[in-house]
C-alpha cells in the first residue's frame, strides 16, 4: 500500500511543519518544498456571511472582493500591476464561516504578495467608483447564474433544506435583490467590525526557508489589531426534512436538466464524519462515481455527469447526489438514485467496498500532497478544524479502524430515503411525473 512506502519523514507532520502564533493571534504554518520554483500563500480569516443580515445578503462577499480594489497606499492599478508584473496572483473570497485567500508567486516574490495581503486587509480604501464597478460585475455574474441549471438547482436545494434564518439557506454571493442594496458604508462597517487577526490562519508552502517566510508574514501582518472582533454567532438549529419535498425551476431554452437530491449531513468535527465520508464514497465517488455512477451512467446511460458529495464544514452541510440529465429522464434518474440511498441505509457495504474506499482515501495522499497548493490546503484544513500537526501521520489509523457497521450507522443517521429534498432546474414547465 502506498502510504507504507511513504516514510513518515516524507509526510508533512510535526517534524517538518513550522507552526508559530503571532502576538495578535495569527497562526502561521510553513512547509518547505524546494522541489518547486514557486510559493503558495494561503489561509483564511474568521469572518464570512454568517455575520451578515439576510437583507444584506452578499455583504461579506462584496467586502472581501472590495479589498483588492485599492488601499490607503495603493490604487487598484498599483495592486494589480505589482502582482501581474511578476506573474503572481492573489484572491480573497468570502465563505459562510471563513474568508479565504490564495496567493502564488515565484519563490523570490513571496514578500510582494504577503505585503499586498497585509496592506489590503489592514487599510483598504473602498473607493466608490471601484465598488460600483465591482457591483455591476457581480450583478452580471448573478444574471448569468440565473440561467445556469446547476446553480439554480443547487439554490433551490439549499433553500428547501435550510430554513430562511440559517446562513446556509442563502448564497454567499447574494441575490439580484440584495446586492444593489449594499452601501459603501455597509462594506466599511463590515470590514471594521468583522475583519481582524483573531483566528486568522496563514500557510506558506514552497521554495522558501521557514524562518524567512515567518519573518515575511510577521512583517506584513503582526501589527494588525481589532480588539472588538466578535466571535461568530451560533448556527440556528436545523431539523432534517420529515417528508420528501420537490421543487422545479423552469429554465426555457435549456437542453439538459440538473438534479440535486439529498439531506443534511455531518459537520467536519462530528464523530461520524469519516464514516459518512467513506459511505458517501461508496455511494457516489469510488470508481466511476460509485454506486450511483454505476447505475445511472453506466447501466442506464442516463447521464454524463453524476456523483455524490458531503460538504462538511463548521456546521452540518448537505449530503447530496447531483446529476445532469436529459429532461425526459429526470424521474428515472431520481428513482435510481433514491434506490441507491435506500440500499445504503438498508444493508452494510460489503467488506470489499469498505476495503476499497479505505484504500482509496489512504492511497491518494501522495498525489494530494504533490503540489504546493495541495500541501497548503491540507495545512489550512488541519489548523481550521484543530486536527493536529500529526493529522497525516494518524490518518491511516483514522480510516482503517472504521467498520462496515460504522458506515451503515452514519448513513442511517443522516439519510432518510422517504424524507429527502429534491431540486430540479431545466427546460419545460414540469418534468413528467412518475411513481
Amino acid at each position, binding site marked *: 500500500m502506498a502510504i507504507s512506502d511513504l516514510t513518515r519523514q516524507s509526510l508533512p507532520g510535526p517534524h517538518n511543519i513550522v507552526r508559530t502564533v503571532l502576538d495578535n493571534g495569527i497562526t502561521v504554518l510553513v512547509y518547505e518544498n524546494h522541489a*518547486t520554483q514557486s510559493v503558495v500563500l494561503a489561509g483564511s480569516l474568521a469572518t464570512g456571511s454568517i455575520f451578515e443580515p439576510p437583507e444584506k445578503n452578499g455583504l461579506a462577499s462584496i467586502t472581501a472582493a472590495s479589498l483588492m480594489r485599492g488601499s490607503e497606499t495603493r490604487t487598484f492599478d498599483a495592486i*494589480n500591476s505589482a502582482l501581474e508584473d511578476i506573474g503572481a496572483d492573489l484572491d480573497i473570497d468570502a465563505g459562510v464561516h471563513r474568508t479565504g485567500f490564495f496567493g502564488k508567486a515565484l519563490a523570490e516574490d513571496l514578500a510582494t504578495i504577503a505585503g499586498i495581503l497585509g496592506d489590503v486587509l489592514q487599510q483598504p480604501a473602498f473607493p466608490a467608483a471601484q465598488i460600483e464597478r465591482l457591483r455591476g460585475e457581480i450583478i452580471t455574474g448573478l444574471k448569468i447564474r440565473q440561467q445556469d441549471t446547476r446553480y439554480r438547482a443547487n439554490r433551490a436545494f439549499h433553500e428547501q433544506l435550510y430554513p430562511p434564518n440559517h446562513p446556509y439557506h442563502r448564497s454567499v454571493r447574494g441575490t439580484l435583490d440584495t446586492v444593489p442594496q449594499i452601501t459603501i458604508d455597509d462594506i466599511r462597517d463590515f470590514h471594521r467590525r468583522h475583519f481582524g487577526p483573531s483566528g486568522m490562519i496563514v500557510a506558506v508552502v514552497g521554495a522558501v526557508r521557514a524562518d524567512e517566510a515567518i519573518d515575511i508574514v510577521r512583517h506584513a501582518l503582526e501589527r494588525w489589531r481589532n480588539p472588538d472582533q466578535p466571535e461568530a454567532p451560533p448556527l440556528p438549529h436545523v431539523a432534517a426534512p420529515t417528508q420528501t419535498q420537490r421543487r*422545479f425551476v423552469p429554465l426555457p431554452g435549456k437542453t439538459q436538466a440538473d438534479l440535486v437530491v439529498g439531506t443534511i449531513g455531518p459537520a467536519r468535527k462530528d464523530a461520524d464524519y469519516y464514516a459518512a465520508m467513506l459511505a458517501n464514497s461508496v455511494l457516489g465517488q469510488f470508481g*466511476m462515481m460509485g454506486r450511483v455512477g454505476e447505475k445511472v451512467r453506466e447501466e442506464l446511460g442516463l447521464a454524463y455527469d453524476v456523483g455524490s458529495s458531503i460538504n462538511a464544514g463548521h456546521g452540518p452541510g448537505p449530503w447530496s447526489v447531483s446529476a445532469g440529465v436529459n429532461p425526459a429522464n429526470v424521474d428515472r434518474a431520481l428513482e435510481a438514485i433514491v434506490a441507491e440511498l435506500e440500499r445504503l441505509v438498508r444493508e452494510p457495504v460489503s467488506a470489499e467496498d469498505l476495503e476499497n474506499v479505505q484504500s482509496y482515501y489512504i492511497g491518494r495522499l501522495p498525489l494530494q500532497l504533490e503540489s504546493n497548493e495541495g500541501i497548503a490546503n491540507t495545512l489550512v484544513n488541519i489548523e481550521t478544524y484543530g486536527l493536529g500537526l500529526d493529522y497525516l501521520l494518524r490518518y491511516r489509523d483514522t480510516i482503517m479502524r472504521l467498520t462496515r457497521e460504522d458506515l451503515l450507522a452514519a448513513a442511517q443517521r443522516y439519510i432518510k430515503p422517504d424524507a429527502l429534498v429534491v431540486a430540479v432546474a431545466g427546460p419545460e414547465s414540469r418534468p413528467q411525473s412518475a411513481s
Partner: protein
Amino acid sequence: MTDSPVIKHRLANGLTVLLKEVHTAPVVSWWVLYRVGSRNEPTGKTGISHWVEHMLFKGTEQFPAGTLDRMIDRIGGVWNAQTFIDYTAYYETLPAEHIDLALRIEADRMVNAQFDPEDVESERTVIISERQGLENSPTFWLSEEVTAAAFRVHGYHHEVIGDMADLLTITRDDLYEHYRRHYVPSNAIAVAVGDFDHEELLQRITALYGSLPGGPAPDLFVRPEPPQTGERRVVVERPGHTAFIEVAYHVPEAAHDDWFALEVLNSILCGPDGFGGGGIDNKTSRLYKALVETELATYVSGSMTPTIDPFLYSVNLTVRDGRHVEEVEAAYNAEIERLRRGEITEAELQRAKKQARALFAYGTERVTMQAFWLAFSECFESYEWFENYLSRLQAITLEDVQRAASVYLRPQNRVVGWFIPTGDAPENFEEDFDGDF
C-alpha cells in the same frame, strides 16, 4: 526542480517513447496519446474520436468494465482521457510503485477494447447528455458558431463533441473501424514522467508494447482551409439576460515562430495564458482597462492554442448588464487598431516574458502536466517545443510582436460572433410540490 533530460526512443513497431525522471514526489504519470482528433473527422462522423475515447473505458477481456476504476482508486491514483481537435490521449498518474498497472492498461486497450454493441448504445445517450450539458452554456453556442464560420473546409470546423446529427447515427462499426485504424503504435506517443529509473522502465515498456502489431502510421483525413478573404460575422440568439462576444483570428500552427509572437501579444492584450497550473488575473491587461474599467464588459479573456494546423486566436468578452454588444465591439476595435499601429512598448514585452516564466513554473510542478506537455508538443511539433518554450518566447522582439499584430489582427482575417440574449426566460418563477415522486 530536478531536471533530468528527456530520453526519446522509438520501438521497432513505431511507438514513440519519451521518458523523463523526476524524483521530487513518489508518483509517476503515464500518457499514451494518439495522433487523431476531431480534426480528422469527415462530415457524418463528427464526434467519433471522442466517442471512441469513451468506449476505451468500457473494459477488455483482461480488465472488464469497472474493474480499473476500482483498481486505480484503490491505489490512490487518477486516470482519465481527453479528446482534442488534434489528438486523443489517455493517462494514469499513480503512486510510483504501481506504475506497471498503467503500462499494462494502455498496452491492453490499444488493441483489445471490445466495443460491445450494448455499450455503444448506452454510451450514445451519455454522449448526447454530455453535448446537452455543453448546450446549456451560452458561450458554447457562440464558440461553436464562430469556429464553424472560421473553417469551411478544414476539420477544425466542428466541435470535439460532434454534431447532434452524427451522434444520433454513428454506428458500432464506424467506431470500431476508427479505433482499429488509428490506435496503432506508429500513430501513438507514450510518455512517462516521475519517480522511476528510465532504463528499467524502457525495458518494461519494450516488453509490453514491443509485441503489439506494427505497420505504417495511418493516412489521416485532413483538408486544408483556403484563406479567408473578408470578415465573417455570426449571431446567436437564445434565451438569457447576458450578451457575449467572441472574436477569432486565423493564426499559424504552433511550430511557426509567429505563434510565439502572438502568445506575447495575447499576454499584452488579454493577460497571459495559464500553462495548466492555473492562470493569474488580467486586471492590468489592455482589454481589461479598455472594456472592464470603462464598465462596458465584466470579463475579458484571450487564448492561443498550440495546434498542428493553423487554428484560431480567440478573444471572449462578457457584456456588462445594461450595455450593448455594438458599443463593446467598437471599444474593442479601437484597442486592436492601437496594436495594429504598433503602439506596443518594450516594458510590456518584458513583462509578458516574466509572466510566462511564472506561469510556466506553476504549470509544470506536477508530473501529470509535464507528461501532458511532452506528449502534446511531440504531437504538434516535437517535445523540444515544450523544453524550448521559454527560450523561444524570450527571443521574441518588439518588432516581432508589432508585425504579428499588423498581419494577424486584420478585420479581414477574423470572425466576429455575438450572443444576443432574447430575455424571454422567466426570472424567478418556481414551482413547489411536496410529497412522493
